[in-house]
């Protein structure tokens, strides 16, 4: 296969040298073809080195103690917050809350609103709006909040093409709506959603907007001011960082007004046996010893991505995705679940292959060294919507190559022969 017609590709030969795991060989010498990036990304040596250096040279607890290591650890942890703030163009570093992952970030928003005073409080008269394409992490926290408060949960449905159906937006988002929580990019369909229209509608009725950017932050420029949302959640491990570190960005005046969720060390101002007062945001929402090394690792990941440039990462993935869609069309009986063009589309492509179950597709691909995700991808309502039990998903990143797309296509032909 010649790939000379593809434009916008990064120098993956150079990039891949930074990722030790990508040189692994599996199953008697087959090179690893890692196409499960929507689940988690691989880590460059720069991130691994930052983690090691932190533990070898600077390890201490943060925001306490006057010794050298405590000051260094605090500077590194808070330095990572600065890097995140700059990466997402946050107006203030105090709007960046470190969490464990995107799920915790979204649960934090739901709990802030459940315990809030008016006008933010979600109660039995309130409505919550989500979409049918959310990851379970942006469904279940809202179901819990609705069950506990008596609020009504509503959702946007999907078109046959894998896009949000916005035709009934005026019925969904009303004066009763307190919060609209929507994903920027679907982890299963790959769809990039027109959140600007939803944000404008929500603003017109005084509702807050939370955006799940888990599949967006790793892959393109993320500008929280341009989004005009109230909260933006994402996770570190999908963007070259370690597991155990996530981010919730929130507008400063909201973070000042909204109550804490988890209580403990770090998040207080003063404590008596009767009551406590709280530290200002972001610390108000970071009870307990935070994931310090993981935050430092995320900072290193952001340095790595920023040195390449998120616009260039996006262009690379767009070229790879367009090429993959073109070549997947060659495989008989293959049906893409989600947009069938690379327009407004991320680098995760889900598909079915005739009546061969995705589990079997994934197993035979694995034997050829190709790692894909199979199942319902924590977005079971999407599978129900399209009448399928599960999909196979290939998802790309900045180190993915056209040659890996070719390997996937060859692998899928082999799967068909195996079960044919």
């Amino acid at each position: 296969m010649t790939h000379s017609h593809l434009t916008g590709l990064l120098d993956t030969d150079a990039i891949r040298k930074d990722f030790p795991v990508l040189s692994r060989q599996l199953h008697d010498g087959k090179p690893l073809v890692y196409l499960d990036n929507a689940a988690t990304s691989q880590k460059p040596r720069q991130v691994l080195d930052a983690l090691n250096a932190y533990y070898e040279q600077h390890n201490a607890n943060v925001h306490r103690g006057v010794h050298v290591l405590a000051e260094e650890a605090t500077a590194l942890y808070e330095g990572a917050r600065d890097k995140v703030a700059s990466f997402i163009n946050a107006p203030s570093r105090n709007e960046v809350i470190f969490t464990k992952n995107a799920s915790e970030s979204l649960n934090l928003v739901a709990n802030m609103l459940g315990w809030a005073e008016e006008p933010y409080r979600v109660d039995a008269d309130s409505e919550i709006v989500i979409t049918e394409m959310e990851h379970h992490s942006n469904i279940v926290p809202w179901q819990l909040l609705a069950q506990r408060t008596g609020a009504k949960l509503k959702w946007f449905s999907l078109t046959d093409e894998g896009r949000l159906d916005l035709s009934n937006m005026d019925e969904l988002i009303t004066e009763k709506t307190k919060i609209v929580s929507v994903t920027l990019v679907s982890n299963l369909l790959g769809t990039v959603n027109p959140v600007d229209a939803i944000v404008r509608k929500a603003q017109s009725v005084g509702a807050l907007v939370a955006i799940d950017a888990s599949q967006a932050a790793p892959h393109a420029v993320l500008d929280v001011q341009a989004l005009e949302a109230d909260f933006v959640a994402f996770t570190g491990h999908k963007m070259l960082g370690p597991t155990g570190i996530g981010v919730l960005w929130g507008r400063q005046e909201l973070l000042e007004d909204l109550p804490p969720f988890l209580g403990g060390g770090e998040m207080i101002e003063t404590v008596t046996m009767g009551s406590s007062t709280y530290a200002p945001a972001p610390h108000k929402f970071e009870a307990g010893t935070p994931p310090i090394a993981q935050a430092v690792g995320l900072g290193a990941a952001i340095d790595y991505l920023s040195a390449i440039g998120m616009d260039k990462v996006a262009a690379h993935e767009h070229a790879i995705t367009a090429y993959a869609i073109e070549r997947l069309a060659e495989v008989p009986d293959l049906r893409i679940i989600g947009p069938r063009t690379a327009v407004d589309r991320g680098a995760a492509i889900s598909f079915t292959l005739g009546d061969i179950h995705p589990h079997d597709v994934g197993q035979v691909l694995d034997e050829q060294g190709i790692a894909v995700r199979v199942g319902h991808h924590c977005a079971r309502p999407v599978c129900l919507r399209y009448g399928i039990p599960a999909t196979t998903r290939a998802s790309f990143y900045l180190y993915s190559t056209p040659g890996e797309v070719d390997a996937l296509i060859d692998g899928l032909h082999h799967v068909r022969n195996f079960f044919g």
Partner: protein
Amino acid sequence: MKLDSMYQEIILDHYRNPHGKGLRDGDAEVHHVNPTCGDEITLRVRLDGAVVADVSYDSQGCSISQASASVLNDLVVGKQVGEAQQIQEAFLELMQSRGQSEGDEDLLEDAVAFAGVSKYPARVKCALLSWMAWKDATAKALGGQPPLTD
């Protein structure tokens, strides 16, 4: 090739032509799912005294889970409940053997073909889905009573 140890021809035959598939009358029904991959089975057991008179099922899932349900139907229908339970326990033990057991062919018949699956931790649950459903449905059908013996 290693993959052939999982996808034995016997398994692929059962997958392509499952035995006893479809829901028929039963004394108890259960619905089991594998939440990690979305495989599902609705399974009914009909007992005739101490004998497993029928195991019927409606299922969707991978070749391993579908073939396993077919083999289950072959192995337990017509057997005494106690004997079928012994087979179920032997199959469970085989699947938990991490590739260290070949299985007792006299007892497990076609089911020994699943020995290779036990080397793949992610797929063991696929093979066990219908068997766990059968165990559960049989317990329900017995209503907590031990099976009658002839």
